[in-house]
């Protein structure tokens, strides 16, 4: 089925099930510990052995030799395979790090060996016995600041509109500042983990934790140069991904190699320290932002130039992603530089690009509002646009940013705040308020599903994944809606390469795309039922098919009726700019002595099209807000610039927000629909919830203390020198 024109009026406008606050249907499995996660799938194949990885102790260079005799002789060991034993593996689309094979080391903790043994403890102990001789590469530069200075102004800008330099010459107010965001890691609860059965070197079966089943299958095929049709992948439950599990990683590769060598199924989970230096992460950024405005408060120029790091050929973290589109201004220059570094692979993490970009841009906007002596909310309202400012012929499909700002300001009590920096104290705490705007793209990907109706019950099969987002629930709601069934009548089956290829989960495209795929499959099923009953345009409700005098219970249809379809999103969308919008309002308290920063109150407003389930959508947004507090105040992969590695490689050293850091969070969804986006008129919300949060916190810290920090995370060591004496 093709979606190639605006949705128009359809059954979702009078929905019975979609849009309702249904608890997640996989909730009981999760809270009773019975949802089968990859590493605990002891029952899927017999005689599972345990694998354990070895990582490189240098950031770049060459492996001269590896001594494995002691490991091979260690109790219980079934196989030891080193990177010197096999040719370099292939690399599939989107990725650039080689996962195994050959003597070249590109980054710290790159996988260089796998040990397979009867028990986990035996494998781990034997892995520690492997001795590796390295030839270190030439001293390398890991200084992103210095690299930015070298490349600044060079190359072709990604966006160039009008006369930027002229705008700055004639501006009434100018902001010109440099901002920095650190490298971040996804830090999901469940590490990358897999059981792989490749015992005979023929068919490969993979039980894993991955956001993108088909990408995973194709990537395995390319890595091992085998036919993708010989590979089966299952990933029904995922303990968090945040983009870190979009890709094939060393867990599956090493388990596969270990399985082939030991001729038995092998399970392998990456140890937590590997999460930081072996898998992907969000690159640090350096950003110079220049804003020019007239005396009337209208932006006349936006100049955003940023750099991030990557292995050769990678995409880094494009912090300028939102800048061509977010605010009106006739003159604009936007450019992203990718700096090659021998660091672990930089890649996508929740809201890649916008998350980092808005951390800087929304502080710059706060600084400009102050320079203009304007309210930050009013300043943003004044600079709203309903068309793509870099291509004014392209309208936004829907854009309710101004309403987000107004609703948020009202709910938060924005106008009652203290406007003088460092002007409000309660006991030992300085109190501050800040806000930021939010922008995130709203892509959709083609998505397929198969539905099976039998005895009035519906089975839905799609390789869509649920990474904790609520896919099971919203897809069941969609199928129930279209088929006139209840959610209890629907049996959801996800995350299996035996099912039709879906969008997968990522880029906040999953909800809008995969519900459209299920919708398409259900419409195909409805057609088959209508044909069988020889009726036209029947109505499906209350478990019945009704057309004129014909009234049949779905439960009375004989046998199993199967339909499959894929929703293909057409080119008509290119006539529009699709995005999601939001506003964040935050209250912080800063200890007047220690400078400790604690968030006291948060309000978020989201404009994301139809909200398919307010409970799961709210969970997505408060999760994003929580991640934003971490990004603002504590999360940083500490780069050792001498050694080219991230030094704080566990969850004690990499500080995500804990419960005690998170206060009351209020989420307001605007009642909007976007008929350009999808048949359900829905867009994503999971990444929007993160966008702008950190800047709102940083702006609140400025309001509390009078100290402006442009270098994340905003930690006390960056403010206490400039705070008033106690």
């Amino acid at each position, binding site marked *: 089925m093709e979606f190639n024109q605006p949705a128009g009026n359809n059954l979702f406008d009078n929905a019975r099930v979609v849009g309702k606050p249904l608890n997640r249907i996989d909730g009981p499995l999760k809270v009773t510990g019975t949802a089968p996660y990859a590493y605990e799938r002891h029952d899927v194949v017999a005689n599972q052995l345990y694998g354990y990885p070895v990582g490189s*102790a240098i950031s770049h260079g060459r492996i001269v030799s590896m001594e494995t005799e002691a490991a091979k002789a260690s109790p219980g060991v079934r196989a030891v395979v080193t990177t010197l034993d096999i040719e370099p593996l292939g690399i599939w689309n989107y990725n650039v790090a080689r996962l195994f094979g050959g003597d070249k080391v590109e980054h710290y903790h790159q996988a260089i060996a796998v040990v397979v043994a009867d028990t986990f403890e035996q494998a781990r102990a034997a892995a520690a016995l492997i001795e590796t001789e390295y030839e270190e590469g030439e001293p390398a530069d890991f200084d992103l600041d210095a690299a930015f200075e070298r490349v600044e102004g060079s190359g072709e800008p990604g966006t160039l509109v009008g006369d930027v330099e002229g705008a700055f010459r004639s501006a009434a107010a100018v902001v010109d500042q440099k901002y920095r965001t650190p490298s971040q890691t996804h830090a999901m609860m469940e590490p990358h983990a897999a059981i792989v059965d490749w015992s005979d070197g023929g068919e490969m079966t993979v039980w894993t934790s991955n956001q993108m089943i088909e990408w995973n299958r194709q990537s395995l095929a390319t890595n091992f140069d085998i036919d993708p049709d010989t590979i089966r992948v299952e990933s029904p439950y995922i303990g968090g991904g945040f983009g870190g599990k979009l890709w094939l990683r060393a867990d599956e590769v090493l388990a596969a190699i270990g399985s082939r060598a030991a001729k038995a199924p092998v399970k392998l989970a990456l140890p937590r*320290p590997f999460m930081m230096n072996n898998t992907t992460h969000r690159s640090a950024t350096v950003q110079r932002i220049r804003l020019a405005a007239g005396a009337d408060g209208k932006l006349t120029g936006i100049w955003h130039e940023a750099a991030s790091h990557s292995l050769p050929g990678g995409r880094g973290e494009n912090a300028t992603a939102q800048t061509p589109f977010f605010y009106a201004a006739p003159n604009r220059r936007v450019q992203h530089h990718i700096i090659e570094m021998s660091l672990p692979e930089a890649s996508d993490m929740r809201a890649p690009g916008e998350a980092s970009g808005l951390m800087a841009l929304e502080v710059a906007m706060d600084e400009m509002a102050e320079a203009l002596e304007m309210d930050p909310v009013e300043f943003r309202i004044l600079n709203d646009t309903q068309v793509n400012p870099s291509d004014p012929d392209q309208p936004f499909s829907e854009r309710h940013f101004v309403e987000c700002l107004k609703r948020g300001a009202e709910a938060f009590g924005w106008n009652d705040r203290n406007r003088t920096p460092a002007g409000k104290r309660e006991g030992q705490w300085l109190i501050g308020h800040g806000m930021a705007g939010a922008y995130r793209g709203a892509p959709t990907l083609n998505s397929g599903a198969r539905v099976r109706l039998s005895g009035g019950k519906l089975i839905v099969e799609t390789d869509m994944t649920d990474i904790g987002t609520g896919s099971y629930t919203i897809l069941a709601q969609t199928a129930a809606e279209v088929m006139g069934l209840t959610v209890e009548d629907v049996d959801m089956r996800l995350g299996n390469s035996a099912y039709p290829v879906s969008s997968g989960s990522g880029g906040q495209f999953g909800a809008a795309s995969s519900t459209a795929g299920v919708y398409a499959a259900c419409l195909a099923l409805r057609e088959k039922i209508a044909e069988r009953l020889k009726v036209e345009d029947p109505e499906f409700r209350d478990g019945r098919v009704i057309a004129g005098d014909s009234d049949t219970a779905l439960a009375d249809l004989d046998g199993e009726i199967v339909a499959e379809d894929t929703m293909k999103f057409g080119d008509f969308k290119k006539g529009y700019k699709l995005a999601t919008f939001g506003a964040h309002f935050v209250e912080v308290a800063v200890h007047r*002595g220690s400078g400790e920063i604690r968030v006291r109150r948060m309000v978020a407003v989201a404009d994301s099209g139809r909200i398919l389930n307010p409970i799961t959508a709210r969970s997505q947004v408060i999760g994003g807000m929580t991640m934003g507090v971490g990004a603002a105040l504590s999360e940083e992969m*500490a780069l050792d610039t001498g*050694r080219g590695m991230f030094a704080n490689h566990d969850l004690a050293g990499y*500080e995500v927000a804990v419960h005690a850091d998170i206060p009351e969070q209020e989420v307001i969804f605007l009642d909007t629909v976007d008929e350009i986006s999808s048949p359900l008129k829905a867009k994503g919300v999971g990444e929007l919830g993160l966008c702008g949060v950190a800047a709102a916190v940083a702006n609140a810290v400025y309001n509390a203390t009078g100290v402006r920090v442009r270098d994340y995370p905003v930690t006390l060591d960056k403010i206490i020198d400039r705070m008033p*004496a106690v």
Partner: protein
Amino acid sequence: MKAFSYEKMTDPAKAAARAAEVEGAKFLAGGTNLLDLMKLEIEAPVHIIDVNGLGLDEITETEDGGLRIGTLVSNTALSADARIRREYPLLTRAIAAGASGQLRNKATTGGNLLQRTRCPYFYDPDQPCNKRKPGSGCAALSKGAFSRQLGIIGTSDACIATHPSDMAVAMRALDATVETVTPTGMTRRIALEDLHVLPGDTPDKETSLLPGELITAVTLPAPVGGAQKYHKVRDRASYAFALVSVALIRQPDGSGRVALGGVAPKPWRSLEADAELPNGARAVMTKLLNGARPTEENAFKITLAERTLAAMLAEE
């Protein structure tokens, strides 16, 4: 983790003798730190002596009006004890600021004192560390290293790690004494001040305990009264080690005691600094942190300690 043998003992003196007799033996109590380190092979004891059956889990009154805390009293039980809460509130506050509820339930008094540093390089077996592998060098002191959390005073060119305990900082301010049993069955009393030793050229040696010597108790002298406060400064509100922690006992006449955590290889206190308390936070820290040798990344701890104490003094 390397393979090890295991035995459970029920007599403290015999446990100490056994530990001295078997080279590479280690006591196991709560295991909240030791087991993590064993998994990474940072600790690789060949023999584990489980001391959880020794008793030593009571808090009793001493003849001079203080308390004797058995080495196996859990952090949770110690912080919740009514006498501790009433007479030594500093200790309750410090313990409650550390770790998490689950860890405090398992962690013991003696084990807390003997926990090891959380320096990230100590925790990475692929990096040099003089504490973990004597003579291999100190990664934290090399150019470009990450040292924000690490020590500023009492450190050496071989090691800048800190002692991570909160409990020990309060005990130092309370003038606690450690009681031990030696492998020959003798009882020894060590002032807490003398339990931890500075790294010098041998950062792998962290205490003055003899091989096999077992901590049996910590004694607190009679209560000293005063207002007792513990401010643990950290980036997130819970479950993080201190950037700086300040233990303060302040008497109505303005005199008192100050001990710092998060800055040194041991709880950091000096009588000269205590004597400056009536003159304010700057006077105290000028004495207490005299001779500090911070890195560029952790020099803020000097300012932070002073500002934190200043706010604590201003609160009263």
